[in-house]
């Protein structure tokens, strides 16, 4: 590598030619882009006429992917900042349960329940962060503790208060609320009705909704995913703070020496991860109208898997929000698509494992190129 600096201009040209290819290779999104193309090619070939690419089918895998994306954006930025959060799944369950308890049991207005839940959950994220910073313990241990603590409360609280583990009736109390539709609503209903009328998408053939399109709008869940991806991408690549995120995860000590407020960055990223988990939870609760103690199980791993498929390094300091979003898309499309392709659903994990392994091997290879390790 050092030859580049010291060689003559003629030799420089040769190096530059190689670097064009290498430059393309070291983009963290690369794995995600290649994987997305491969996955879609596969399913277009094997599941094209199975309903997977009908309006209903496409909306199904889009919603599942958007769910992964929302938590992957938070997990991605946190992982680039050099930390993990294993409490994401429990946070989803906890946040949903808190909204249900506030809005249904305590009878608060739904907007207030949502806002208080956001404040509470990001505060718990901050506590996660402070404990990691103050104790210097590995974040996966600290957040593993919160995985249990939050899940425990999510089961305990509704049992004590309502004597059951699922609290429903949120749809009724959310009727007419101004904030609830921002999480649980749908947009572009008119466009889909028009498409249904024009015969572009299927319509219900019976029941009270006869004649209405089977997909009646884009859920706010998808809008949230897009907004969070754009926000995360700009924050990471285009701002001063983004540089600090890379620096904090690349080498916290070196970053501190250069005047980067590493602790602040890490705590804020823990809070952002908790925020994303809460967005996930609120969208889910508002869509389904109930909160259950089992919501979000294992979602923390799904988020981390999406991020890793998207090209981020587990060791921190390298990754991309767009890559993580593509990773989430791959994850969602594979999970839902294998069913359409007629593959036994229990084999989903085999595929997931293969993709994960492939992605990690690719990432390691990329890191070697970047750091010049042999």
């Amino acid at each position: 590598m050092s030859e580049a600096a010291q060689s003559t201009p003629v030799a420089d040209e040769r190096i530059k030619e190689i670097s064009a290819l290498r430059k393309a290779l070291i983009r963290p999104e690369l794995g995600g882009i290649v994987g997305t193309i491969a996955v879609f090619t596969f399913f277009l070939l094997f599941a094209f006429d199975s309903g997977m690419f009908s309006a209903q089918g496409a909306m199904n895998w889009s919603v599942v992917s958007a769910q992964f994306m929302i938590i992957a954006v938070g997990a991605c930025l946190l992982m680039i900042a050099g930390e993990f959060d294993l409490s994401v799944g429990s946070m989803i369950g906890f946040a949903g349960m808190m909204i249900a308890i506030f809005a249904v049991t305590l009878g608060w207005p739904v907007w207030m329940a949502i806002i208080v839940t956001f404040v509470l959950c990001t505060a718990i994220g901050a506590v996660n962060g402070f404990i990691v910073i103050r104790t210097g313990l590995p974040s996966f241990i600290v957040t593993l503790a919160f995985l249990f603590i939050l899940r425990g409360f999510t089961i305990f609280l509704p049992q004590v208060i309502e004597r059951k583990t699922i609290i429903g009736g949120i749809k009724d109390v959310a009727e007419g609320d101004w904030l609830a539709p921002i999480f649980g609503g749908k947009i572009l209903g008119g466009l889909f009705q028009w498409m249904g009328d024009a015969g572009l998408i299927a319509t219900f053939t019976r029941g009270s909704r006869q004649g209405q399109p089977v997909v009646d709008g884009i859920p706010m869940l998808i809008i949230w995913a897009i907004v969070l991806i754009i926000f995360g991408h700009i924050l990471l690549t285009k701002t001063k703070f983004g540089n600090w995120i890379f620096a904090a995860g690349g080498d916290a000590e070196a970053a501190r020496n250069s005047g980067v407020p590493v602790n602040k960055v890490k705590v804020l990223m823990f809070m952002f991860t908790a925020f994303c988990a809460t967005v996930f939870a609120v969208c889910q609760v508002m869509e389904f109208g109930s909160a259950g103690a089992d919501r979000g199980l294992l979602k923390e791993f799904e988020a981390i898997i999406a991020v890793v498929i998207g090209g981020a390094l587990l060791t921190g300091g390298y990754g991309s929000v767009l890559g993580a979003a593509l990773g989430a898309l791959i994850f969602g499309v594979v999970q839902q698509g294998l069913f359409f392709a007629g593959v036994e659903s229990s084999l989903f994990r085999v595929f997931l494992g293969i993709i994960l392994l492939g992605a990690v091997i690719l990432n390691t290879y990329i890191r070697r190129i970047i750091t010049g390790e042999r």
Partner: protein
Amino acid sequence: MISFVKTLAMASVAAVPMAAATTAVAEGEKYILVSHAPDSDSWWNTIKNGIALAGEQMNVEVEYRNPPTGDLADMARIIEQAAASGPNGIITTLADPDILSGPIQSAIDSGVDVIIMNTGSPDIARELGALMYVGQPEYDAGYAAGLRAKGDGIGSFLCVNHYIVQPSSSERCQGFADGLGIDLGTQMIDAGQDPSEIKNRVLAYLSANPDTDAVLTLGPVSADPTLLALEENGMAGDIYFGTFDLGGEIVKGIKDGTIEWGIDQQPFLQAYLPVVVMTNYHRYGVLPGNNINSGPGFVTADGLTKIEEFAGEYR
């Protein structure tokens, strides 16, 4: 990059023959059974065998789907997905109406026939416009068991709940308590799904409350470790032991007298009958006029031969 593409290519090559092998393509009808059970719940094996046998006998394509972790929100997505793949019918459990009513309603409205099985109730099935409900009303089953236990002189019990987040599990315990005419209170424990944890929690509860009259377990997941716990603390055969559902160990327990009775909801029928009913409905337009109660039936030490033979497979 190369390795990644290669991996995917290999995966796809591997997937094609498996795809062909696992779905028996037949006369065109396709039925999908969606359950709420996590992968770890072995009780659902009977259900899988039930639909597989029905698919074979009726010559239709059947598929079993479940959320791997038992997350009901994931289950809602699976129902939506099942509907999008355009099957002739969906057989689904209805563990939580708040979450699942919407997707089930959409499936029905888009022209897919639905039968509610296992969890749910005849009322909600009618409300949604499903063809029928096949299963055992959980609260009623618990209540009947409670009455029976009360007749046997039971005044207190321990309910070992291995699936606390599922409302119908708690209903079984609640029904049992109401049948006994006592308050459930703290007599229901959240046992978790891990056998050794369940065993230790049962041991802990019984050593803290040694005068407990009875133990109620909700299926093989909690019954098998509870049997071990009772053997360990010497209460086996002494304490009054009733359980929901059957399984290999439970049948042995009933046979040697450790378990008084098992409530058999006959899951085989819950999976088998909907496929038969729907196939005939779609082929000949015939449909039974009522819901089907597959249980409860109390299984005691008398007449265990058939059950023993097929326990865990079809019983």
